[in-house]
Each structure stands twice: as C-alpha cells, then as structure tokens.
C-alpha cells in the first residue's frame, strides 16, 4: 500500500543547504508526500517550490530545545505563516514541564495557538526526556490547549519515537488529537507498525514508500485510514470497511 499521504518528509539539520531543500521538495512532489518539514529560514524557498502542488509546508518553532521565550515562539510562528507555512510544529517547554510549572507550559502553547489562529498546530513532546507520567501530563496539557497533533520527538534528542510511548499517548488522548511519530522511523515496516499503534502522521527524513502489494492488506484499519487520507471516498473498499 501507499503510505505517502501519512508522511511529513523532513529535513531539519543545521547544515541543510538550499540545494538540499530543493531536493527535498522535488522528492516530496514525486512521491506525493503530505508535507515537508523544515526550519523557518527555508519556508519562503519551499513555498516557491511547492506552489500549487497541494503539498503542505510544516515549519518547526523553538526547535529543537523548546526553550526559547514564549513571545519569541509566537513571533517565529507568525513569521513562518507569513513566509508560507501551512502547519506549525512547536517544541513544548520541557524545562517548565520538569519544573512542574504546568500553567507556563500551557500558556506557552496557547499563546502560539492564538497567534496562528486556525493553522494546524503540532506540539513536540520529546518523549525521550519524559517519564510515562510526564508524557500523560504533557498530553493532557496539549488537549487543554486544543492542539491538533501531538508529535513524539524532535529527532535531535537521544532517541526518537517508541511504540510504547505511542500507545500511551493514544490511550491518553483517544481521538481528541492526532498523533505524529518521528525520530528513527526509517523503513516501511516500522512505519506500518506505528500506524497500527494509532499514529496518524509520520515524520521521517527517509523516503520510505515502496508500493508493495504483498503488504497491501496487512491491516484493515490502517488500509481504511489510507483510503481516507487519499480521499478515495466511494471506493468499494471504503464501503466494505464501513459496513
């Protein structure tokens, strides 16, 4: 099956050149990925490259430490929108969370949310730094702030997404927000496992999308999600899964 519509094709390294961003956007077009995920300095460039393609631009904010001041995060997000971003991915303030100052964690997110209005907001938890209880707390703060997507990892910490954490997040938030997994998802099989565990989006810098018939019907739930993501609404398959 084709999982391209679940993928945010990602390039966030400090050394990313303009040429790298051009290649990223070209590959995203070729594969029909859902979005590209980049740093704010390259949003305007990506916008030019992806004009009229339907591929979205996700831009990271306060990245990767989440420790910039709230006002700076708000401004960076607004500026990214002005440059052409379609989605904002901010890193939660982990220091505030670890200080157990949950009000400040919430305010940090809400201020960005207010700043970008209806633009989808993803919040990166950086699960590698959090205990199980902190993950649950972070999720409920995200729900209070009405974020659209909860994302596991920045890819710059000691480790990335885990299936265990994905399941904890899913159990905590149910269907009140989407889950994006990222960090270390480097092949198709792994991606499928996460989709089965409840992930809705996948952030990866690897082009993982072999359209393989053998795995086509591996999991009905995931396949249905795929059909919906590709807006194949009246297909026989959807009718089959909806009956």
């Amino acid at each position: 099956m084709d999982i391209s519509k679940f993928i945010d094709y990602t390039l966030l390294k400090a050394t990313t050149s303009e040429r790298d961003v051009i290649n990223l956007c070209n590959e995203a077009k070729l594969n029909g990925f859902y979005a590209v995920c980049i740093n704010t300095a390259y949003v305007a460039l990506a916008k030019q490259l992806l004009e009229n393609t339907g591929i979205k631009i996700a831009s990271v904010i306060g990245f990767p430490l989440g420790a910039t001041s709230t006002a700076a995060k708000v401004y960076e997000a607004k500026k990214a929108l002005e440059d052409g971003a379609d989605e904002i991915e901010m890193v939660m303030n982990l220091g505030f969370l670890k200080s157990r100052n949950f009000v400040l964690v919430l305010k940090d997110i809400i201020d960005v949310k207010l700043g970008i209005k209806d633009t989808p907001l993803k919040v990166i938890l950086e699960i590698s730094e959090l205990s199980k209880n902190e993950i649950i707390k972070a999720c409920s703060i995200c729900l209070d702030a009405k974020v659209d997507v909860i994302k596991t990892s920045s890819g710059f910490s000691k480790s990335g997404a885990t299936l265990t954490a994905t399941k904890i997040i899913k159990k905590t938030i149910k269907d009140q927000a989407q889950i994006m997994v990222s960090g270390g998802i480097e092949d198709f099989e792994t991606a499928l496992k996460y989709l089965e565990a409840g992930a809705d989006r996948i952030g990866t810098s690897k082009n993982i999308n072999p359209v393989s018939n053998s795995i086509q019907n591996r999991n009905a739930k995931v396949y249905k999600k795929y059909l919906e993501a590709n807006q194949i609404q009246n297909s026989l398959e959807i009718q089959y899964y909806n009956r």
Partner: protein
Amino acid sequence: MAPLSSYIDHTLLKATATKNDIIQLCKEAKEHQFHAVCINSCYAALAKEQLKNSGVKVCCVIGFPLGAMSTEAKIFETKQALFDGADEIDMVLNIGLLKSKDFAAVWKDIEAVKKCIPNNILKVILETCYLDEPEIIKASELAIQSGADFIKTSTGFGTRGATIHDVKLMKHVADGKAKIKASGGIKDYGTAMQYINLGVERLGTSSGIAIITGQPSTESY
C-alpha cells in the same frame, strides 16, 4: 592575567533545565564571580532577577542550536531577550546558508541582529564541527564584518566542541578585530589555560567550578 573566573560563561542550555537548575546556576555564578550565565531565552527574566546587583551578566542564546530560524525570528528573539534582561547575545550563524555559499544572506542575518543590540556584546557561534577550514575562515570573516564582538566555536549540541586547531584558525582571522569564545568540551583547568594562552577571552562551559577549583568534572559541555 585577570582572574580565571572572569573568563567563564557559566552555561546551562539543556532542554530539560528547570527553574531550580537555573537558580542554582545563578547562585554558583555569584559565588564564584563568573563573567556571565549562559542560558536559553525562556529563563532570561528569571536569571536577571537572580543576578540583580551581582555584577554577573546574563547571556542568552538565539536561534539555538541550529541557527536555522528565519532572520526576523532571530531579531525578535534577541529583542525579547534584551527586554527580559539579557546583557549579551550568543547567536548561531545560519550554517545552512553558509553551506549554500549564500554569503550575503549569512552576513545579513548577523548584521540584522547586531543592529538591534548596538550597545550589547554579540557573539556569533560558528559551530566549527560542521565546517571545513575554508568555511571556518569564511564564517569568521562574515561574522566580524557584520559587527560581531566575539566569534564562538560551538553550541555544545554539535558533533564536537572546540579544538585548538579551530581556535588558532579563528584567532588568526580575527586578528584583534573580534574576540574569541571557546566552548564545548572545556572541562578542566589545563584545557581552559591552553585556550587562554592562545588568546581566547571567554570560555563557555558547564564545568566552570571544576575549572577554577582544579577538580575533575562530569559535565559533558
């Protein structure tokens, strides 16, 4: 030589640094009379309050640690940090634009930040671990040309920290027009003195106390 402690920016930049960690950092900086504390911008106001009337400066990092945020965002973050009480700014150069050989953009990025803090110290972090020799030379030139007061080797989040070789190269390019801050992996008295003897005027380290007391340190930055 000035006291060793006056060379040191006492540094805590981990994502998970708590309020109490920052308070502790400031307390240590006061006690040992370090030059500054170096922290993320979300804690500028807290540090300022902790360090009131102590003579220890607040140094904030900007666009940290990737340097890949838009210039406008760096400017705003700088202004906000200053408003919150920062005395010095350590910004990361846009490494990607340097790699793209878009030198005008690299230069404008730095100049724009310097313009909003004409009376404050601006240090530009080159992140030398990702650069080859010609790039270190070019980056140093661009930073100095753009008004940087210091050029700084590393964020502590790259693949390695300062090296003697990088510092010598930067010192050679700077040639008195800018000062040098070495950072990343400076954990003991011997290493610190090695850099100071090369002409480095500031050290960024989480091991400041170990350095001035001659004890071994367990910190990684």
